């Protein structure tokens, strides 16, 4: 089975892009499933079910969504392998713009939209910078110039990535993406022993453990302060 991780800021069009791309993959005879990771709430699993795509949903709730992702991705992979899917796509939102739940040796796709502003590529960390494929959406509503400037900014922060433009509404471009997703040499049976491409941010302070009171005396553990002198 091929595992493909898809990440991107909330509302960038990940689900639309995945749905349209799976259409093309199914036509080529692939068995495709999705694992949807989100934070508090998602309806997307219903969208996948409606499209006849096997789906597992995981909500991280009070935990860091990306830590939750890594802690569960091996089980999800096992589910995919056991069910004999050809391709399993994991979908997760990069909520803090830094994280990259990308795994070495596993194809990584980042979805980001033209409306997010031309400085956005600068602000997104490994999620964008270490992706193999960057999909840019919502190109149908901005000018050609803005599309070009945006794509060139993405290229500056990740020159090695294949940059693709996809219209999540019509699906234009999704066939092309589908041709890049399956690679026989990337078949896996398990994720055990594989490594993340980039370490996740550390978080171990009293607030991680449920503290709600504000003030220095309540802060313990890995706490860092802003520099306030000018």
């Amino acid at each position, binding site marked *: 089975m091929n595992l493909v991780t898809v990440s991107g800021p909330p509302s960038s069009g990940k689900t639309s892009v995945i749905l349209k791309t799976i259409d*093309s993959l199914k*036509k080529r005879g692939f068995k495709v499933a999705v694992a949807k990771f989100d934070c508090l709430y998602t309806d997307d699993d219903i969208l996948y079910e409606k499209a006849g795509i096997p789906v597992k949903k995981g909500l991280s709730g009070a935990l860091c969504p990306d830590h939750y992702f890594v802690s569960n991705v091996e089980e999800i992979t096992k589910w995919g392998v056991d069910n004999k899917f050809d391709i399993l796509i994991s979908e997760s939102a990069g909520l803090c713009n*830094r994280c*990259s739940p990308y795994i070495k040796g596993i194809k990584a796709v980042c979805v980001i939209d*033209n*409306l997010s*502003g*031309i400085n956005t*590529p*600068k602000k997104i*960390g*490994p999620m964008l*910078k*270490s992706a193999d494929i960057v999909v840019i959406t919502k*190109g*149908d*509503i*901005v*000018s*050609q*110039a*803005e*599309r*070009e*400037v945006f*794509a*060139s*900014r*993405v*290229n*500056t*922060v*990740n*020159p*090695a990535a*294949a*940059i*693709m433009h996809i219209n999540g509404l*019509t699906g*234009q*471009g999704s*066939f*092309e993406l589908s*041709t890049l997703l399956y690679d026989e040499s990337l078949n896996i049976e398990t994720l055990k022993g594989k490594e993340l*491409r*980039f*370490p996740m*941010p*550390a978080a171990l302070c009293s607030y991680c453990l449920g503290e709600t009171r504000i003030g220095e005396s309540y802060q313990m553990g890995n706490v860092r302060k802003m520099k306030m002198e000018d």
Partner: protein
Amino acid sequence: MKNLEIKKISELLSEFPFLSAFFNDNGLEIEGKEELTLPEYFAALDEDEIEDRAIDVDNLMFQIGEFIEQMIAFLGKDEDIVKTVTILQGTDKSGNKEDFEKLEIHQGEIISIVGPTGSGKSRLLGDIEWVAQNDTPTSRKILINNDIPDKKWRFSSSDKLVAQLSQNMNFVMDLSVFEFVELHAESRLVENKEIIIKRIIDKANDLAGEKFSPDTPITSLSGGQSRALMIADTAILSKSPIILIDEIENAGIDRKRALKLLISEDKIVLMATHDPILALMGNKRIVIKNGGIHKIIETTDQEREILNELEKLDKTLSAYRTKLRSGEIIEKIS
């Protein structure tokens, strides 16, 4: 390669000036550190900083090399001109062969595309943009300059084959007209920036019914002005040899001149439209049916005469519109 590891940052910058954009966009501050080599620079960052800012040193070294190669390739070529695009027969949605064998489209030509929604116009454009080689659902094949095209057209962000102008596009940035065009010019690394910016704004004003100045915010341009600016900017600054137009609304812009501007810049214009005035301006039109090219019609002399009539009607209509706008009483225009 290129001794990336040995050279000082200052030496790299003077050899590859475009690297300053790379350092800047990747948030790497190099001021005061120009005399270090890249490995020294990265080694001098403290560990907290590397972790906080999610800097991946190995990956960055690799990306810098990649970026330099791309930019050198990008700056080095001018001879890369697309003179013709050829579409070779594929199949429609039912798997039947299309009713044409070969369509060759030349620089400076306007080709209209007609057919109901869902008939396969997007797929045709998709095939061209992806330079299909028997590997899309239609099995079409696209040739560039009568040759099997370079794969770079598929993935390069600086070499896109098709630029698009469509009805529902907007400007979303908060910039003045001048700043906006300047930003685009900078991303394309053009020389003599000032001259090109001026030319674009002049041309856009030439196409727009109502004039605007370089310091107008782009978000406050009227629909016609926006379209005029988008077209002038795409014609002059976009490197893509093919321009796809998805209808141009007939208000506040001289569409005939807009098309003339595009073909005078040696573009190939593909136009999806059901407006007879636009469609008949094309040299040919492609009729799409059931996902395939059903017919290719050359615009006949008779059609051109009809186009003349339609343009007269259009002029009359817009004269009434102008009168209405300026608060006049409408009288018959002869």
